[in-house]
């Protein structure tokens, strides 16, 4: 109040030109009452539990009670405590656990929940099933055999180059005889028709047990084809368990299916149709990006131009042009408001003037700034020349960044 009064009086009593220090004015509510940014963000991003809940469409996790687990372990723990060799190696920091057995044990106990967490991190469930998820209770063992006898495995999000994944992988999982399964490999990223679609890369239905060869191959294997410039795409294997044999003949494609439009796929629609007969049980996925081997594949197999894309960066903010821009270098200021195409054209014309039709362009100078021009040059032009010779700023636009 007093500040307001002072301001009111200031105009009448204080002479013009005198510096006055006003008391500081607080914007908004005082800090004890106002909410913090964290609270505000929480309120903005709060999800309504009646609408935004996720549904488990897979098998429930088998919960083992802690007591029953530990009673089985106790003898082993006691035996380990009394092991003098183990103690010695542990104290001398030479105890190295066997990673293979660690992984086997982990898959039995925590494997599915950890895989589920990573898949959620990669947005797999969200893009495939929307508001549903499943627990990957059946561990999938997928490995690509490369030509130089390397075995490349698919885990949860590791990077595999398209050159390494050119042939169909070997898939194994634990399954009893007499059960039926189906395996689908699809990618929700980089669809050329619509952003909501996926590409079906592999579809095998009615697999008896884990003998993939005996299953019905409806869509043949297509290697990862990430277009140039869009980065890493996810390639997701989902294993479904079937209650009984299903007639998938509507999805049957002629082999080899190289028309990408025919491979358009929506997992959610597929699952909705067969949700009474299918239950998702296994999950594995990898990421893949552009590789030089893809160029040949696009030309020879898919018979198309290589799709080249680039990320759509936001345009820079440029202030509105004023009549009298103070303290601004006139050439840089005016260049900001000119058509960038025109600037590029000027640079190109100036460059072409120096290019000999037969000998090509001039060789680059070894010391670009050590060539004095005799006559007087204004400083702004001197600076422009320096920039041009050293290859700074606008000159680079010619090389199509």
């Amino acid at each position, binding site marked *: 109040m007093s500040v307001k009064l002072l301001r009111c009086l200031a105009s009448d009593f204080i002479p013009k030109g005198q510096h006055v220090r006003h008391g500081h004015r607080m914007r908004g509510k005082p800090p004890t009452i106002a909410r913090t940014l964290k609270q505000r963000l929480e309120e903005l991003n709060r999800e309504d539990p009646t609408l935004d809940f996720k549904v488990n469409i897979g098998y429930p996790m088998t919960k083992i009670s802690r007591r029953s687990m530990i009673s089985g372990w106790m003898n082993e723990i006691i035996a380990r405590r009394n092991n003098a060799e183990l103690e010695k190696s*542990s104290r001398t920091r030479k105890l190295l656990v066997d990673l293979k*057995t660690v992984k086997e044990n982990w898959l039995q106990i925590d494997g599915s929940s950890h895989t589920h967490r990573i898949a959620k*991190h*990669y947005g797999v469930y969200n893009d495939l099933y929307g508001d549903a998820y499943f627990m990957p209770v059946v561990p999938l063992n997928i490995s690509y055999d490369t030509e130089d006898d390397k075995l490349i495995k698919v885990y949860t999000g590791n990077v595999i180059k398209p050159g390494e994944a050119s042939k169909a992988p070997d898939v194994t999982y634990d399954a009893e005889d007499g059960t039926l399964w189906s395996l689908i490999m699809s990618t929700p990223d*980089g669809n050329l028709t619509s952003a909501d679609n996926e590409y079906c890369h592999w579809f095998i239905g009615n697999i008896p047990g884990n003998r993939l060869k005996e299953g019905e191959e409806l869509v043949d294997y297509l290697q990862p084809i990430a277009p140039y410039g869009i980065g890493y795409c996810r390639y997701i294997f989902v294993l479904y368990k079937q209650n009984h044999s299903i007639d998938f003949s509507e999805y049957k494609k002629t082999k080899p299916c190289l028309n990408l439009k025919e491979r358009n796929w929506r997992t959610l629609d597929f699952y909705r149709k067969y949700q009474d007969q299918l239950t998702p049980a296994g999950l594995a996925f990898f990421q893949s990006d552009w590789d030089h081997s893809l160029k040949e594949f696009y030309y020879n197999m898919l018979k198309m131009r290589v799709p080249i894309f680039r990320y759509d960066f936001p345009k*820079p903010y440029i202030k509105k042009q004023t009549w009298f821009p103070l303290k601004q270098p006139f050439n840089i200021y005016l260049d900001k408001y000119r058509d960038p195409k025109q600037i590029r054209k000027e640079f190109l014309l100036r460059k072409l003037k120096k290019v000999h039709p037969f000998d090509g362009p001039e060789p680059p100078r070894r010391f670009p700034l050590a060539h004095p021009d005799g006559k007087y040059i204004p400083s702004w032009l001197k600076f422009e020349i320096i920039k041009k010779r050293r290859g700074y700023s606008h000159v680079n636009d010619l090389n199509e960044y």
Partner: protein
Amino acid sequence: MYSVNARAGITRAFRVHRELHGNTELIETCTEIVNRNPRNLERLRIARKPSGYHLNKPGHMYWHKLFLIKKLRYVTAEVRHFENGPVVSVSSAEWALKKQLYRTTDSSAYINIGRVLAQRCLEAGICEMQIDAALTGNKCELLIKELEKNNIILTEPQVYQYPNSWDRYRPEKPWEIHE
């Protein structure tokens, strides 16, 4: 959000008019595609990295960061994402590790946690991460050394800034690096 614009302007001008079919038609009509992978932009260094606020304690600037939770009986190493929370975790309380260890908090436990964490991170496609400042001491150093030995990079790259036409330098484009 993740849209990518086709650089088809030049090629379209020189398009040969002939019968288009199948994939050729598909690519001629496509002007925009979307990569829905939420981790893609982080791998390409384009994604936003939180920078924290002026009065915050530093240490908010990361996509993935390694944290260590020490308890009296066991140790847990966790890789957290700045939005999604814990992603990969290894604990000496897990039966898989506990089964083969002599003691769950000694140096060799830390070493083995490091080895298993490196393996799980590489399997999850996380090969770069920051390290929490609280990870100090001999045992933590052993863990970090073990991570380094197993091909985990312990720093994260800086965010790529798309240059304006008047900027001096043109940095290397991350989406053109194919190892």
